[in-house]
């Protein structure tokens, strides 16, 4: 048998039907559902008199729209439209009999944090969700990607997706990371290298010593932003780190089934000599703490850099850079560490897990944020929040001057009341710095949790290494 990549293996194990032209029906093991991209899909089922084919493999949780302030059970905290979406999910989950974590459940949170946390996401699975950051689950060696609402309806009805296979891309991060450099810096540095379209048509496998050395949470941060590089999915081969994380989770296999699963999971790696259509290699020691300066996630520079000039680019990017620099209110040649910040957001499916909370707390411990700074930490789930409180992290945040919120997507996409005002500038641990992403005319700089915490203290984009 010819050698296979990890992606080839998972793909082959899920083809339920293949047509002569290579169009496949790919079987879906886990379907995650949230309130924004599902109402039209459930309505479609209802109108056609269809059922959810595998409700036991379907997990729903409201996250995008929900307020993250105390007392949010009060419907008055939500806009009428948001309330209708959340209520629609309540109703649809009940009517179609899928697993559901309502707002009142301590396990509620961002769908991509809830899935892994509860053991729904396991190695070798196919996982989809009507959300592009489904790529997160690739950290387990699961083939996971975002889909549109029509495809949500298709998966609900048939538990399959119509797909053609993507190409294989390898992203290798060799060696060790330097102090102050995190998973977020890796994933941003890769996008800086490949561009936001560099992964289009590919599934990325991340590998190399620096990836192996990451915890599961760090791996989730890396895979989360595979989509920002344009890839359909990002994958990391499962290993002992993965198995240790999964073991004992509520929906992970138990007892005898665990041994059987483990035996299978250990076959999930890229064979020696397997073919990759594209390879990108970065040296771990070359990666620095990074920050975005523009309005595309590919606009990445080391924190020691300066704002570029449009003429530094070629082709269509010249005009895009000109537009970005103007939108962001920056001047070419300006040092990135001179950029003043008025808001800090720590959270999201990229960086809303317990290790992210710990990284921020380490920087903030015993310190106060700059006067006038608006700073919020939004845990990715109720369980992350509970854990952070138990570890005393929440006290550190509150004493530093941060707002300590309830779980949700919050200011990552600002669908709930957490938004930037016009021209407000935010150091954010989220994943997108698009125009208007965090609020109309709001300005976003993407950073790691430690760098976000550092910016909250100094009031400027800050090289975390100077505070270490």
């Amino acid at each position: 048998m010819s050698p296979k990549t990890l992606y080839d293996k998972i793909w082959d194990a899920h083809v339920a039907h293949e047509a002569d032209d290579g169009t496949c029906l790919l079987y879906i093991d886990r379907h995650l559902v949230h309130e924004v991209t599902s109402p039209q899909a459930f309505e479609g089922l209802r109108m056609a008199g269809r059922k959810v084919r595998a409700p036991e493999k379907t997990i729903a949780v409201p996250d995008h729209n929900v307020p993250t302030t105390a007392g949010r059970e009060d419907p008055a905290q939500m806009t009428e439209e948001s309330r209708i979406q959340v209520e629609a999910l309540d109703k649809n989950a009940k009517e179609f009999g899928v697993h559901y974590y309502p707002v009142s459940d301590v396990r509620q949170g961002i769908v991509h944090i809830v899935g892994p946390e509860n053991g729904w996401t396991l190695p070798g699975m196919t996982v989809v969700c009507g959300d592009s950051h489904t790529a997160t689950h690739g950290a387990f060696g699961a083939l996971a990607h975002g889909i549109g609402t029509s495809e949500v309806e298709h998966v609900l009805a048939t538990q399959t997706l119509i797909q053609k296979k993507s190409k294989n891309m390898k992203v290798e991060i060799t060696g060790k990371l330097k102090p102050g450099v995190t998973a977020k810096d890796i994933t941003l540095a890769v996008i800086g290298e490949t561009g936001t379209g560099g992964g289009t048509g590919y599934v990325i496998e991340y590998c190399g010593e620096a990836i192996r050395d990451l915890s599961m949470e760090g791996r989730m941060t890396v895979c989360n932003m595979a989509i920002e590089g344009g890839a359909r999915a990002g994958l990391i081969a499962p290993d002992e780190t993965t198995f240790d994380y999964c073991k004992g989770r509520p929906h992970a296999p138990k007892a005898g089934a665990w041994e059987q699963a483990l035996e299978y999971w250990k076959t999930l790696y890229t064979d020696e000599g397997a073919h990759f259509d594209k390879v990108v290699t970065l040296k771990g020691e070359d990666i620095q703490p990074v920050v975005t300066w523009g309005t595309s996630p590919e606009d990445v520079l080391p924190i020691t850099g300066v704002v570029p000039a449009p003429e530094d680019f070629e082709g269509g990017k010249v005009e895009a850079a000109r537009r970005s620099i103007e939108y962001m209110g920056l001047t070419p040649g300006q040092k990135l560490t001179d950029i003043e910040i008025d808001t800090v957001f720590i959270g999201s499916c990229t960086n809303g897990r317990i290790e992210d909370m710990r990284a921020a707390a380490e920087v903030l411990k015993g310190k106060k944020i700059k006067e006038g700074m608006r700073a919020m930490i939004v845990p990715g789930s109720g369980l992350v929040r509970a854990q952070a409180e138990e570890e005393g992290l929440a006290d550190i945040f509150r004493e530093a001057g941060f707002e300590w919120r309830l779980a949700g997507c919050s200011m990552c996409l600002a669908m709930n009341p957490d938004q930037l005002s016009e021209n407000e500038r935010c150091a954010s641990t989220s994943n997108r710095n698009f125009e208007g992403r965090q609020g109309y005319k709001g300005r976003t700089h993407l950073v790691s949790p430690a760098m976000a915490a550092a910016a909250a203290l100094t009031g400027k984009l800050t090289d975390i290494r100077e505070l270490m």
Partner: protein
Amino acid sequence: MKKFETFSGIAAPMPLVNIDTDMIIPKRFLKSIQRTGFGVSLFDEMRYNRDGTEIPDFVLNKAQYREAQILIAGDNFGCGSSREHAPWALDDFGIKVIVSTSFADIFFNNSFKNGMLPIALPQEQVDILMADAEKGANARMTVDLEAQEITTSDGEVIKFEVDAFKKHCLLNGLDDIGLTMEKETSIDAYEAKAGAERPWV
């Protein structure tokens, strides 16, 4: 789904690269639970001032492009979020065809599910179409999916590639779910086999 038929229409030029789904339809319009009515909000933040008045320089606000049915766009169109509201908004506005050098994967798939045709072409050919689009309302292009051809206002014919299955679905207005359900026995068989091999899933 509606059938995709050959048509001649106005093409609007949008040469900006990396036009993302947040630009196409900002999140504040994602709160609807319907599939329609998004056209008026298409490109909202580029198209309107905060007070709701139009920004005259924006291409779709210009008299010659208000009825555009084709968009000629910069590289990596539709990147970002999976929101199908992006193709819904384009469709609702009246855009049936988008041409670019490349498309983000999820947006590309979502478009076909709504009877729209995204066409990826090499830079030189996109340049020809962009120049043609810049001529304005008199420059009507013709898109023929059956023949896989775009004809410019000058009569220049540009061939394009399209996946055979997707083409078939567009031309016949076929509903994916109905087609897949015809293969239910394959799905049943897969489920039985996978369930035996990986019972923990």
